[in-house]
């Protein structure tokens, strides 16, 4: 039995070093060598070098001159993430969805039936960087008006920032909100 315990301890020590230490270090080395930008979190910097966000992480946009992301269960807190975990029958959830729907329809000046459900439901991690093209199209007139630029230019920008499904079928067509808003600032 003592022999068994000794083997257990030795095996744990060896594999803990190999798998807890060696493996992450090798993976880290490969990542830093081949994909350094992604390895650091796909951060976006402005001209003066300050980090303005990550292209993979949604940030809050509330002003009319920006496209708005999906609602977040954690108020876009990228240090403590999560969904709402509301069940489909939860009265608080349904009330929140109804309120968002009214607010969104009023803001964009459309009927609720034109509001894609993505804009009234919170995403899984609360950091979904994307909205579907329909949700961008819905917001384009308001953004164009707030910025005083022609609607066509904003719509063209949305089209240019619409990513198709990978290989044509994998995943959904989507628009990255932060990248779109950064492009807007360049207009």
């Amino acid at each position: 039995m003592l022999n068994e315990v000794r083997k257990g301890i030795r095996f744990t020590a060896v594999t803990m070093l190999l798998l807890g230490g060696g493996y992450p270090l090798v993976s880290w080395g490969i990542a830093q060598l081949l994909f350094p930008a992604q390895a650091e979190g796909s951060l976006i910097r402005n001209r003066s070098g300050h980090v303005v966000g990550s292209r993979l992480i949604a940030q809050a946009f509330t002003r009319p001159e920006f496209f708005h992301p999906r609602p977040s269960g954690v108020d876009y807190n990228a240090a403590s993430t999560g969904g709402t975990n509301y069940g489909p029958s939860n009265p608080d959830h349904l009330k929140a969805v109804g309120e968002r729907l009214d607010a969104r329809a009023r803001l964009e000046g459309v009927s609720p039936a034109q509001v894609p459900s993505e804009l009234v439901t919170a995403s899984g991690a609360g950091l979904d960087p994307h909205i579907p093209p329909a949700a961008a199209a819905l917001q384009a007139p308001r953004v164009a008006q707030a910025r005083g630029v022609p609607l066509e230019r904003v719509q063209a920008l949305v089209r240019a920032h619409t990513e198709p499904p990978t290989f044509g079928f994998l995943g959904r067509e989507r628009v990255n909100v932060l990248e779109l808003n950064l492009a807007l600032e360049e207009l």
Partner: protein
Amino acid sequence: MLTESVAVAFTILFTIATSLPLGRYMARVFQGERTFLDPLLLPLERLVLRLTGVDPAESQDWKHYARSLLVSNVVMWLCTFAVVSLQKWLPLNPDGIGNLEPTLAFNTVSSFTTNTNLQHYSGETGLSYLSQMFAITFLQFVTAATGIAACVAIIRGLGGDRQSQLGNFYVDVTRATVRLLLPLAIVVGALLVWQGTPMTFEDAAKATTLEGTEQVIARGVVAAEVAIKQLGTNGGGYFGPNSSHPYENPTPLSNLVQTWSIAVIPMAMIWTLGAMLRRQRLAVVLFATMLAIYLPMVGFAVAREAAGNPVIARLGADQSTGSMEGKEVRFGAGLSALWGVTTTVTSNGSVNSMHDSWTPLGGLMPLVGMWLNNIFGGVGVGFVNMLVFIVVAVFVAGMMIGRTPEFLGKKVEAKEMKLASLALLWHPLAILVPTAIACHVWATTPDPETALGWLENPGPHGFTEMLYEWSSAAANNGSGFEGLGDNTPFWNIGTGLAMLFSRYIPILAPLALAGFLARKPTAPETAGSLRADSATFGFTLWAVVVVLGLLMFLPVAVLGPIAEHLALGSF
């Protein structure tokens, strides 16, 4: 919807197709045959075995094998318990994270030692980089390898003829780690970084957003951990929301890689069994039987999630893309539903959407996956769980045709049936009894919402949250209806114990069973033997799994998801 169905079908077909060569490779590894990776990995395997002090030629009977398995797991439990309980004072803690409180440490370490990865902490605020590496990532390798080793030993037992040796635990666990999981994890990890998963020792990034507010973005050594969390059917994510977090799963391509990683080794294990026993037909029958349960579950879940939440439809929003609460735009309803079913039938438990927010009947499918727990199943243990049902199916079929039950030419007798029944009955017992206790505590506590604060959701959905938690613990799955406020001593200790018993009873009972079967002589197959590699037996097994595996859970399914579905007032 059409492209989503194509994506779902492609993902499944791609995984099945690649599981074939992987299964053959695994069979070669565990039978000590040569493989193309030997020049790279064989020296590493020898090094680990030498440093452990194991003689690779020494073979163990089932008792010795079980003893090595248990002792090594106890040592790992103790070491990682020390790491997470002392992380505050250990290096690699740039964000200054404190120690885990004892009941949370008990739960976390039990969870990862049992390959469950139920998480009552939240990764980005609960664990230091050191703990993520030396406790979490380490356990995600070795516990997966432990399951695979047990499965390989059991397969040897089934193929044995009057022998008692099942192989050497340390050789098997080292081979599974070094020659299977490690190379796959390095490749998968690199693919994930390419797609955008961070892999850095820097602390959280600080950004000033376009609207001028501060945003702190947690990151870390993510990619390495995500790769092995999927390949080892562990499921425990780096961040709280797991693979729905855009850092853990940035693109549809990373989603494909991860969905593949969840299912491919459990699927390949069936082909490994066919190759090791030299019974390809049996492997085909088992694989088809599992598919015949898996595919309808996927289809049903995709359809329910694509149909959306009827209440939100009545509010008037455009829900043409399905139920999107708790789901990510880049995956959509279809790939989220596929993931949810795959991760629960395989005892993985990672999520790319919040199961708590699924539609009621859609959310029933992850529960069914965990209640069965043998459709491909966790790495290694999936087939071990299925073996229990095979033994019962053989028994039932034998009784029906009036013959002595036998499997692969070996008589199944009272002793084997007792062990199979123990493993079979433990699972529902470990789910239903604690659920009843939790309900009792909730119902008898005055003002439970403030006194206990467990449930995010009222009504039948709140019941389902508790049911899901116990199902997840007993199935060693690790996913959750995360609305449950589960970081309390009741849930930490309760599910911690459930995970430990539900890991070792269903491994040790079948290991003993295989040990007994190995000693028996193999009778030559005649026209009168019950053939396990026939479509008839496949259908019998399918029926036994569905009827025995699910019927016990019908009452709780009605109380939870089905009641909620009816209350939503849809069809």
